[in-house]
């Protein structure tokens, strides 16, 4: 069924109105800026707006309207779109990841075009995977989970589209801006000021949609997964707004100054940066874990009490921990001590979540053995435990004096993002795609098994080589000989990294190969869509018409 056919005529008309508004906004941006990155971004928005006008306008009278019975079904069309975008961004983001990994091994291979320089490609990787891949996965699954666990249809049919399309425009602006050399120079918050404002509008729409849907729930209680998703939505909004407060140099260009400066700016940035890890890369994905793992394993959540402990522990402790990114800097010592101690206490609620997930598999271990999809989720929980243990360890000041600035940090990052974030996303995708496209199973069930082993091997090769790299690097930097002179010159420590960088590129390549296989498998599944209804989807409690 065409996505437009899921909208009523009046929804299509409102949609056309919004699309025209987007095109006008894009035109205004382009006209005001005249040239430069902002003009190009305005042009992108205008083209997108016009394309949406045509799609919706063409459908206005042609496609039949959905019947009133739609209100007794879940609204999954935008979720399908979100899953498709997740897969596209996965291939782009991880592809660029392998590219920058290769550049670190072979920097001479940088082509002569500006946009291929390491400094521009690196944020394309980080934003591409975190926001493009992770963000789309979070939004799509949250909309799925909130409906199932509330037994309520999404509060309305247009705002999920606004959220997903608008969010992807943000990602596109961000990534294309970096390639053209525009950045706010704040890690994970590089996008230009107008993109940031745009994201605020999108995010508020998302928050409203989520809350309104929860309010319509037919279940007496709100399931844990929804607490996590809600924490993700709410806190990301706060972090994003505060860290991105900036004054544009001109209203007609992409450059801006942050309003914070000096050590305050550093502290705000890493309060943001660490809680981006906490609420973007952790809380939302824990929501995913709490839904898809018990459903796939067909087991009850092991402990309701642990869920509560870990939720409030994570929400409370993470907020204090950001200063562990600034150990031994101009940041006052006392702030570092607080960051360190709260990071250590954070370990307990983190492990409570990982432990709860793994204990939930009691009684389903035979399924873990046989079902690669469940195995993805199991491995995700294990890596979640590993990377949080590692994180709390790295946050201890003397340990950090060894690890900071080394590739150990990057190894920690990818044990979290590959082993935890990407694995749980793949598990969720393989659970969802057959359901959403009305099939019993994926088109190529064997390929899921292949993907699993490629992903595990890729993660292990990546992470183990960078642990070695980081520890080697850290030790070489701090070794003095008996005469009080450094034992190694810096360039020797760079040369020592080469074999590890080669291995990392290989591990990343394996991981990317798995992701591409996943995308192709999903495409094949989507093309062979059936009309099977998911038996697990209980009938909705019908809501009064909107």
């Amino acid at each position, binding site marked *: 069924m065409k996505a437009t056919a899921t909208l009523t005529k009046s929804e299509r008309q409102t949609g056309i109105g919004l699309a025209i508004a987007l095109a006008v906004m894009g035109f205004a941006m382009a006209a005001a800026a005249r040239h430069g990155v902002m003009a190009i971004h305005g042009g992108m928005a205008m083209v997108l707006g016009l394309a949406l006008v045509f799609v919706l306008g063409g459908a206005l009278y042609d496609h039949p309207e959905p019947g009133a019975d739609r209100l007794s079904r879940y609204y999954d069309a935008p979720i399908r779109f979100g899953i498709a975008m997740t897969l596209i961004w996965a291939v782009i983001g991880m592809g660029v990841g392998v590219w920058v990994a290769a550049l670190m091994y072979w920097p001479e291979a940088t082509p002569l075009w500006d946009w291929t320089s390491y400094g521009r490609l690196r944020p394309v990787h980080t934003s591409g995977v975190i926001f493009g891949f992770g963000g789309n996965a979070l939004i799509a699954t949250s909309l799925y989970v909130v409906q199932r666990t509330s037994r309520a249809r999404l509060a309305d049919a247009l705002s999920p589209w606004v959220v997903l399309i608008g969010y992807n425009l943000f990602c596109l602006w961000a990534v294309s801006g970096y390639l053209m050399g525009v950045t706010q120079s704040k890690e994970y918050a590089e996008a230009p000021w107008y993109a940031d404002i745009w994201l605020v509008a999108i995010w508020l729409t998302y928050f409203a949609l989520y809350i309104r849907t929860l309010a319509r729930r037919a279940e007496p209680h709100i399931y844990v997964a929804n607490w996590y998703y809600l924490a993700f939505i709410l806190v990301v909004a706060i972090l994003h707004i505060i860290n991105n407060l900036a004054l544009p140099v001109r209203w007609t260009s992409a450059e801006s100054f942050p309003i914070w400066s000096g050590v305050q700016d550093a502290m705000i940035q890493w309060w943001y940066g660490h809680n981006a890890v906490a609420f973007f890369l952790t809380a939302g994905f824990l929501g995913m874990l709490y839904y898809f793992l018990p459903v796939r394993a067909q087991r009850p959540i092991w402990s*309701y009490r642990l869920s509560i402990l870990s939720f409030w522990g994570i929400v409370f402790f993470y907020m204090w921990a950001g200063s562990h990114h600034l150990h031994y800097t101009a940041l006052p010592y006392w702030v570092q001590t607080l960051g360190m101690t709260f990071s250590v206490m954070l370990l307990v609620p983190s492990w409570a979540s990982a432990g709860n997930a793994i204990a939930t598999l009691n009684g389903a271990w035979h399924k873990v053995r046989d079902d690669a999809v469940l195995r993805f989720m199991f491995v995700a929980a294990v890596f979640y435990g590993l990377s949080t243990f590692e994180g709390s360890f790295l946050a201890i000041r003397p340990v950090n004096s060894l690890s900071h600035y080394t590739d150990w940090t990057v190894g920690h990052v990818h044990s979290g993002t590959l082993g935890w974030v990407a694995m749980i996303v793949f598990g969720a995708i393989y659970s969802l795609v057959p359901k959403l496209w009305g099939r019993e199973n994926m088109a190529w069930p064997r390929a899921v098994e292949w993907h699993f082993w490629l992903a595990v091997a890729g993660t292990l090769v990546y992470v183990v080589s960078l642990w070695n790299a980081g520890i080697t690097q850290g030790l070489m930097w701090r070794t*003095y000989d008996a005469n*009080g002179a450094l034992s190694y010159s810096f360039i020797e420590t760079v040369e020592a990294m080469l074999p590890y960088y080669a291995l990392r590129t290989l591990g990343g390549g394996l991981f990317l190969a798995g992701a591409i296989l996943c995308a192709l498998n999903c495409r094949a599944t989507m093309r062979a869509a059936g009309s099977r209804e998911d038996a697990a989807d209980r009938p909705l409690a019908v809501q009064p018409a909107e």
Partner: protein
Amino acid sequence: MTTDPRALPGADPHTGNREVDPVTGYETTGHDWGGIRELNTPFPRIALIALALTVIYSVVAWILLPAWPTGRDYTRGLLGLDQGEVAMDRLQAIKTGRAVWLTHFEAPDFASLAVNRGLMALAMPAARRLYGDNCALCHGSDGAGGPGFPALADADWLWSGDPEEIAVTLRHGINAEDPDTRIAEMPAFDWMDRVDRLSLAGFVASLPTGKADWDSPAAGLFTQNCAACHGEKGQGGLGVGAPSLTDGATIYGQDPQTVYNTLTLGRRGVMPAWAGRLGEAEINLLALYVSRLSETKEERTQ
């Protein structure tokens, strides 16, 4: 909330019992979200113990270290640590250790230092890393140089291979932002006829082979325009930073095309001044190290 177990969600309305999970033997909480249920597992003791341990760790850290803000001040901690002081202390300790041998380089007599084998055994490995951190990116880890950057590991010098002179080069640089910098400028001969530049370039390119034709018109051009800086026969060594054109060593290259470019555009390579960045002893240490690079290279090839 009622305390009657029979009224709780999921409870059997007659007995008040809730469904028991056959695998773990625990009751469920009675909640059910689209098939997801939860067990009413008692709180695991280990989680509480772990939480208590991490809290104790934190409290001890707060007592010992600077930790909580108190308005304009903060709690100093029993250990009274200050990260700036700690860093300076450690730096000082390392400096003291180094002083044992480094002081010999404050105002050195290079000739007597170089024969002090014990001192050299301490100093040269340190010099190698100092060189690696500050010089290798331009001159190469082994001093082999590269296009635009002269080799330091050969016996051919722009200025001099004498450690005193090298120390001057290091201190003040060449064409650097330093009032006493050495000046070495190869002027552009763009006013010269293109044909003359081409023939001169060919002539200069043939100098290192020893087969250059000193009776050719190009040789005349050379004597007229170039000899003042590069020497009568292009042998260099006049102490103006103009390299010898007869040895095989080159900075930019001595093929006809590169020489033609050198003539057309001129050259003005920059060697940074290190006086503000490295200590006097370190500069002297490096000067001695660099002066010995060519010897160590010869030793190695022998």
